[in-house]
């Protein structure tokens, strides 16, 4: 038989079989969809957090916090020092009032908490953007050492320290997501295998007839493998649609909430590569499930009868 006719026959028989036994096939499609939603959800979160951290890292910010009792001369001296530093691309001075205003914007849900305090505890600071070559950790550590010994400086922090800690968290999410994804995919494979096993039993008579009329084993099995693949494909498409809906809701929620990193946090849906990985995982789960079904259904006993 020509390869194209073989594939066309397997696919048409698979579609026909799935439609005819849609109630049997539905649980496998549903569990694949749920599994891939879990896996895709973790992919979506970790990808976006990874992008956020990358942008944050690229921003190259260092914040120089002044003592609460720093004098204007000390502030001016630091500004002059920054003006003459070739590693500094730009800087902004935030007075204690600016810091309070920033706090109110960032934490609007806390109300005007500062109004209940006797004095503003937020120090003035310089937010320094260092140039590209100085965004490496070694350069940042050196700059920090230079600036923290200047008179009137309380503390110097650079984003990389926070980013490092957050990266650990993101890697933890990726690891947990990977483990959970593998577990749910295994569940999906086992469910698909059971469903295909039921479909094989339901169509045993048809299989016998096919063998009697000279159907090859590859054709008998090919149609069920195609059914597994189609179940996986449908499951992954459903998962992608559901994930996209959840993503849209998430974007709206985050945008409404505001926050200090909102300007960095332009969320993206799964790209082509991750989308294809998700669809491929679904199809693979379906095919592996079908292979398992044939491996354990005992159907081989009568394969040439």
């Amino acid at each position, binding site marked *: *038989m*020509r390869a194209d*006719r073989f594939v*066309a*026959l397997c696919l*048409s028989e698979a579609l026909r079989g799935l439609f*005819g036994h849609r109630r049997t096939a539905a649980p496998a499609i549903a569990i694949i969809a749920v599994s891939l939603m879990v896996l895709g959800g973790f992919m979506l979160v970790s990808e976006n957090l990874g992008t956020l951290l990358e942008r944050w890292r690229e921003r190259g910010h260092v914040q120089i916090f002044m003592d609460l009792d720093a004098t204007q001369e000390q502030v001016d001296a630091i500004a002059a020092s920054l003006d003459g530093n070739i590693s500094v691309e730009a800087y902004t001075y935030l007075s204690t009032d600016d810091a309070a205003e920033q706090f109110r914007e960032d934490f609007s849900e806390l109300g005007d908490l500062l109004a209940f305090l006797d004095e503003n505890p937020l120090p003035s600071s310089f937010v320094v953007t260092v140039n590209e070559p100085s965004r490496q950790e070694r350069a940042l550590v050196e700059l920090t050492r230079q600036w923290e010994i200047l008179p009137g400086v309380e503390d110097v922090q650079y984003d990389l320290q926070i980013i490092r800690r957050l990266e650990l968290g993101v890697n933890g999410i990726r690891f947990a997501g990977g483990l959970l994804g593998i577990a749910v995919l295994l569940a999906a494979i086992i469910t698909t295998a059971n469903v295909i096993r039921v479909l094989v039993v339901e169509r045993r*008579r*048809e299989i*016998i*007839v*096919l*063998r*009697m*009329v*000279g*159907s*090859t*084993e590859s*054709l008998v099995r090919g149609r069920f493998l195609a059914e597994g693949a189609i179940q996986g494909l449908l499951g992954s498409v459903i998962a992608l649609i559901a994930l996209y809906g959840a993503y849209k809701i998430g974007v709206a929620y985050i945008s409404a909430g505001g926050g200090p990193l909102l300007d960095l946090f332009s969320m993206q849906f799964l790209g082509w590569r991750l989308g294809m990985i998700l669809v491929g995982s679904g199809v693979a789960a379906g095919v592996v499930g079908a292979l398992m079904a044939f491996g354990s259904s005992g159907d081989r006993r009568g*394969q*040439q*009868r």
Partner: protein
Amino acid sequence: MIRCFHVTKRYGSITALRDVTFQVETGEFVFLTGASGAGKTTLLRLLYRAELPTSGQLVVAGRNLATMPKRQVAGFRRKLGLVFQDFKLIEDRTVADNVALVGRVVGFAKAESQRRAHELLRLVGIDGRAELFPAQISGGEQQRVAIARALMSAPALVLADEPTGNLDPDRAIEIMRIFRAINRRGTTVVVATHDPDLIAALGYRTMVLEDGKLRVLTGRGAGR
């Protein structure tokens, strides 16, 4: 077409066929008869390679079935047309689709398979039922569909196991006329039946199985 030399088939301690030897020539029509349990179905199963003989040699359509690798069985069966007492039609496919499926398996394109299926259904006289499902037609019509399906691969040999067992005498005669027509077109036909009236009505060579042993050869061409 068929060369059967000293074939014995045992299932554990039960011997279904004992030292059976016969030949069927190309283009011949042969009846295989005997009481229930005599071994007719076992012999047919050996002929379409659903089983292997315990001993002896069996050559069908030029192929030695005892030495045929499993992977070649499908190709071998495409040279045969098989008809069963219970029709073995697929219930959720239309009459035309049941027949056309064989065409797809053999390697014809979908449209070609459908065209051939309708031709064969016309040949067996039920083209008007093509779009119905097996449950919507009579037993005699279902057996015609099964015959049309058996002819789809243009087989050199048709093996029929009690094809009229579920039919009334009039329908049985109609089915046998179809087999005779097929035979007259040059196809070798072997029909297993325990109906002596049918055998007498057509008068072809008859092989009789008794307790697994081939006892008597009668009819036209007996002793070949």
